């Protein structure tokens, strides 16, 4: 490489590892908070009607009954209907959230920057986790192309966002394994992670927040039975 190329790359590298990183985390954090508040603002509390005296509510059944209940619930859930997709999604999302926290290199950076760090898994372990996430991403990619009902509602943005989500993991592994040019891969790794963070509040990635708000806080057939919020646009009574 020429001197100017090296200079340009290192200047860009400084920018990506410095201000852009701060910006990405800030935008992500603030964005998540703001989207959460906006979502909450679209709901209001509505106390469920109290028509059954407390002492008449059936006490929990036997262990066998409760176990049967849980097994039936699982059987008719998406885990029962589309076990492969549901399973892969579970593994993907778990890996997505957990892996970055326990990568040795990340914890070393944290330690160097702030003097704190999480527990680190062995590099062999985190490499396996990373590749698992990438493999799940590949499954999603193929599913989007080959499964009829998913193809019918797929838009180009779905592929772009999948790439953005899997990008940090793929480039992280490529960098760590030195398969391709390390400097390039590590820059792409940091950049793709920053893009992903920034996109979280502004794209369908925000289902991360929405999932918990709507399934835990909002009353509905598929949510928590005792949820006390409803959408503001819904008026089922005069309250």
């Amino acid at each position: 490489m020429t001197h100017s190329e090296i200079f340009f790359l290192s200047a860009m590298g400084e920018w990506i590892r410095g201000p852009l990183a701060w910006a990405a985390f800030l935008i992500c954090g603030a964005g998540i908070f703001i989207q959460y508040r906006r979502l909450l603002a679209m709901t209001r509390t509505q106390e469920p009607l109290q028509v059954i005296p407390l002492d008449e509510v059936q006490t929990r059944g036997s262990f066998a009954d409760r176990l049967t209940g849980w097994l039936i619930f699982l059987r008719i859930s998406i885990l029962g209907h589309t076990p492969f997709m549901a399973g892969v999604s579970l593994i993907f999302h778990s890996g997505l959230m957990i892996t970055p926290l326990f990568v040795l290199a990340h914890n070393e950076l944290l330690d160097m920057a702030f003097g704190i760090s999480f527990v680190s898994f062995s590099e062999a372990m985190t490499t396996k986790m990373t590749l698992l996430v990438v493999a799940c991403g590949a499954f999603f990619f193929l599913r989007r192309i080959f499964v009829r009902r998913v193809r019918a509602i797929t838009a180009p943005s779905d592929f772009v966002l999948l790439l953005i989500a899997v990008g940090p993991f793929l480039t992280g592994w490529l960098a760590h394994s030195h398969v391709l040019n390390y400097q390039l891969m590590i820059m792409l790794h940091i950049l793709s992670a920053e893009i992903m963070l920034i996109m979280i509040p502004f794209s369908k990635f925000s289902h991360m927040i929405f999932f918990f708000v709507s399934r835990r806080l909002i009353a509905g057939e598929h949510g928590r039975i005792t949820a006390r919020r409803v959408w503001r646009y819904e008026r089922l009574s005069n309250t």
Partner: protein
Amino acid sequence: MSEPTNLPVDPEPIREILKNHQQQIRLGLRMCAHCGLCADSCFLYRANDRAPEYMPSYKFLNSIGVLFKKKGKVGKPAVEEMGALVFENCVLCTRCYCPFGIDIPALITLGRRACRSQGVFRAYDK
């Protein structure tokens, strides 16, 4: 389906619906991950050979979703197609499941309202 009229689309009532419910519609469109997990919860999807046109997400994305993205500027044939989706392919049994909790029946209802404003509705006496 209602008799096709030759009147052009009157965009005002559609824009009114879109304006009054824009938060709700925008939320549904933003949150839909296009995952297709809602399909199995629709008995019509299962009863119609798993055709994608019966999938809850397909139904709302291609009715109120299209109206929202095009700001109500659609032609009559498009409205009639949407009418087929929301009146024929859906009975509003309100049991559709979405992993993210999108209120799909509410969006289908808005789609029906928009179609009705253009004289497109289900004819039960056919």
